[in-house]
């Protein structure tokens, strides 16, 4: 057993865990935070995605002991304290970007991460940014719409700083190494 302390959705926890305990099982079975589901055993589906120290991770592929000292945000911690939904939650609802909803927590966490790095993505960038998440119901089209809608919404709300340019571009697969 190893002792860990983790902050999850704003609450601090301390627990003794087996080193092999997966973060997702720690959240679900120990903390009762069942908003984050498990959809596969090969790190493919992304249903389990949470935010660990500011970055999206697949919580089925992180040990609880690796999260020791860290801060986790799950789908259950996204809404503001007064219950107001995150713009992505609203956009998923309004654009009908979920059917069964099983992939939704992961999709929203992945999209949140994507928009943090790239607040104004193209539809193609959204599709690529979500390549670690599988949905079997929606055919993805409304998910892409929702992410674009939420991005637009968030940009509207963040008063644009003059001259600020998002630094997000992925490197192209080709180029010249010569200094630019």
């Amino acid at each position, binding site marked *: 057993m190893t002792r860990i302390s983790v902050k999850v959705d704003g609450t601090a926890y301390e627990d003794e865990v087996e080193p092999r305990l997966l973060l997702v099982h720690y959240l679900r079975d120990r903390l009762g935070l069942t908003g984050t589901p498990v959809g596969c055993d090969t790190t493919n589906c992304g249903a389990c995605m949470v935010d660990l120290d500011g970055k999206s991770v697949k919580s089925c592929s992180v040990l609880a002991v690796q999260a020791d000292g860290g801060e986790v945000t799950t789908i259950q911690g996204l809404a503001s304290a007064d219950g107001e939904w995150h713009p992505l939650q609203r956009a998923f609802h309004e654009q009908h970007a979920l059917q069964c909803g099983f992939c939704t927590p992961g999709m929203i966490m992945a999209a949140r991460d994507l928009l943090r790095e790239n607040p104004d993505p193209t539809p193609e960038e959204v599709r690529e940014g979500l390549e670690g998440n599988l949905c079997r119901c929606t055919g993805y089209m409304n998910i892409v719409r929702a992410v674009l809608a939420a991005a637009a919404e968030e940009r509207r709300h963040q008063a644009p700083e003059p001259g600020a340019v998002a630094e997000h571009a992925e490197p192209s*697969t*080709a180029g010249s190494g010569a200094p630019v």
Partner: protein
Amino acid sequence: MIPASFEYARPRTVEEAVGQLALAGEEAKVLAGGQSLLPILRMRLAFPELLVDVGRIPGLRGVRTDGDTLVIGALTSHHDVVHDPLVRRHAGLLAAATATVADPAVRHRGTIGGSLAHADPAGDVPAAVLALDAELVVQGPDGRRSVPAREFFTDYLQTALRPDELLVEVRVPKADAWGFHYEKFQLSAQAWAVVGVAALVRRDDGRIVESRVGLSNMGPTPVRATACEEALAGADAAPDAVASAADSAAEGTRPASDLSASAEYREHLARVLTRRAVLAAADLT
């Protein structure tokens, strides 16, 4: 699925880690980002008794330059490699190849060292590192040694690393003067490369001075397309010359036949993709 039990250690220094590895011998496994190791443990394909979590050892993460060499800490995440300005400036090929690894969440956790130590021939990072003629610095109980990338990958999922050694840094000669391209062929956006081609080309106006071509998934280890490189040396920087050189891209390779592709098709892909990668790297598209 659920991993079998193991003990867990979280050393604070490389020396401590190496000591723990030496003590446990074959029964221990290094845990870096866990993006290859944890899926393996969950499927119960391996049963280590001890995981040595090197994820928090200070100094193993990040990128710096050392003269003409770029030094990348083994624990640097794929995400950080992709976005690092030094990498993008001096080893664009590595950033390009790494950007195609898995998905953003896996790239947040997975590390360059883990990719190389895991040595999956289908991996994108090993082929790029091979093409870049990098040196891999490993540390064991007797100190550090440096292994050229060409000698690092010894067989399928096997490397020159000894059980008590840790990969600590990747030293990449700056490739500022080289054009580059990583061409990855996948069956779906989530899938690993059926074949990947990491190409570096140095041009002198109308000629190709030199090229280096690393291939992923064309054998039990990542390999260099040596015959093609030779054919390109001094060749015209022209589509025909590149095409004819690329015809030899599969020479000497030993690709597997598996669910994704037959060996024969992989050889064909290696030729087509090498042509495309070299043309792109040579700015001929």
